[in-house]
C-alpha cells in the first residue's frame, strides 16, 4: 500500500514535470521536481529507501522522456543514496533543510550526470554548461523545494503510520 502511494506520487510528478512545469520555464530551465522529491524522501526515510526512490524516479524519467538512457537513473540513484546517509544527522523540521539540501543536491546531481555523459563520450563544455544550466536550476529548485518538502514530510508521516 505504502509503495503504491509512492509509485503514484512518482508517476504523477513525471506527468507534471513533462506538462505543467515547462510552462513556467525561464530561458529553457524548468525546476526538477522529481529530484526534490527524491532528496526530501531520502532525508526523511534513510538511504535504503532513498536509493530505491531515486532509482525508480530516474528510470521512469529516462523511459518517459527519451533522454539519454541511464543519465537520470544513475544520478538520481546516487543522490538518493548520499542524502539518505544524512538521515540521522539532520533536524527534519528545520525550514532551511530542504533549501540547503536541494541546492547541494542539484549541483551533485548535475555533476554525476556530467560524469555519466563524459564516460559515454558526449562532448560538452562543462564550465559554461554549468553556469548556464545548473546555477539557474539551483535557484529555481530551491524556490519550490520548501512546499514540495512540506508535502513529502506529511506524506512520509502518513505512510509510516
Amino acid at each position, binding site marked *: 500500500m505504502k509503495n503504491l502511494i509512492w509509485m503514484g506520487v512518482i508517476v504523477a510528478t513525471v506527468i507534471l514535470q513533462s506538462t505543467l512545469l515547462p510552462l513556467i520555464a525561464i530561458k*529553457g530551465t524548468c525546476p526538477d521536481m522529481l529530484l526534490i522529491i527524491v532528496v526530501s524522501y531520502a532525508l526523511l526515510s534513510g538511504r535504503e529507501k532513498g536509493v530505491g526512490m531515486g532509482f525508480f524516479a530516474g528510470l521512469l524519467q529516462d*523511459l518517459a522522456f527519451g533522454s539519454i538512457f541511464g543519465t537520470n537513473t544513475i544520478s538520481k540513484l546516487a543522490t538518493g543514496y548520499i542524502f539518505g546517509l544524512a538521515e540521522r544527522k539532520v533536524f527534519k523540521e528545520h525550514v532551511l533543510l530542504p533549501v540547503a539540501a536541494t541546492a547541494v543536491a542539484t549541483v551533485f546531481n548535475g555533476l554525476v550526470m556530467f560524469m555519466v555523459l563524459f564516460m559515454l563520450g558526449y562532448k*560538452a563544455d562543462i564550465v559554461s554548461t554549468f553556469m*548556464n*544550466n545548473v546555477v539557474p536550476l539551483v535557484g529555481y529548485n530551491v524556490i519550490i523545494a520548501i512546499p514540495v518538502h512540506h508535502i513529502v514530510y506529511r506524506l512520509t508521516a502518513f505512510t509510516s503510520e
Partner: protein
Amino acid sequence: MGLFHKKTVILLVAVLTVFLLVGLQAQGKYKFVFMEEFITTVLAPVQSIVSNVGFNFRKVGLSTGELMTAYRDNQALRAENEEIRQNNLNVAEIMAENVRLRAMLDYKKVANQFDFVTAAVVGRDLGTWNSTITINRGTADGITKDMPVVTSQGLVGNVVNVYTHVAKVQLILDARSAVGTLVQRPESRVAAIVEGSSATPLSPRMVNIARDADIIKTDKLITSGFGGIYPKGLLIGEVVDVVNEEGGLLKYASIKPAVDFDRLEEVLVIARSREPISTLPPTTPVPSAAPGKAGIPSPGAGR
C-alpha cells in the same frame, strides 16, 4: 548484518546492470523499445489532458496581460496594416504577371510542396542534456522515424521514436541534433551544421564555419537539404552573434530559432515532401499541340 549484506549486493547489482545497459545503449546495440513504448503510450493520454489544462490556464493569463498593451498594439498594427496594403497591391500586380508568364511558358500549376500531419504536443522534457517533445500522432497516422517537424514559423526538429499513437520528436535545441544549413543571403550561401548546445539551451549554434566565411548578424538560416532528413528551404532562425573559436581557424554563430520553443502547442509533421521541380512538365518544345497533350506526361502533378 546478513540482511545488510544482502541489500548492499542488490544495490551493487542494480547499479552495475544500469551501467551495462547504458553502455549497450550508447553503442546502439540494444534499445528499450518495449519499455519505452509502454511507458510513453500509457502516459500520453494523461499528459495530453494535463497539458491542455495548462495551455488553457496560460491562455487566460496571456490574454489578461495582453489587455494592458492592446492600445499600443492597435496603433502599431494600424501602421503596419497601411504598409501591408501597399505591398499587397504590388503583390497582386506581380502575381498577375506571374500567371501571365506561367501561361506563356506553359508551366503546370505547382503542387503543394509538402504533405502535413498536424499533431498536438502532449509532453516535453526540458533537460540540460536533451530536448524532446512527445506528440499525439504515431505509426497509425503515417508517421515514421526521421520525418521533419515544423511549425508555420520554422523548423522544430525530427521524429526520433515512433509508436502506434505517440511519437517523440528531438528538437533542434537538443545537443544530439545536427541540421545541415545554409545562409539565405544570396551573396553568402555559406553552408554549415547547426547543433544544439548544452551551454545555451535555447540558442543552438552553427558550428565549424571558416574564419573568413561571409556570415554576419541578422543573417537568416535555412535548411540546406544535405543529409536527407530535412528538405531544403525550411527556416531555422537568425544569427544573433558570431564568435571566433579558440584555436584561430574556425568560428561559430549563435542562433535565435525562428520557432518559439517556450510556446509549442501544435506542430506539423512533414509526411511527404516533393521536389517542386518534379511537378513541372517535361520541357519538350510542343508549340502547337500543347492543349491536347498537356495532361498526359505527368498525371499526378495537377492535384
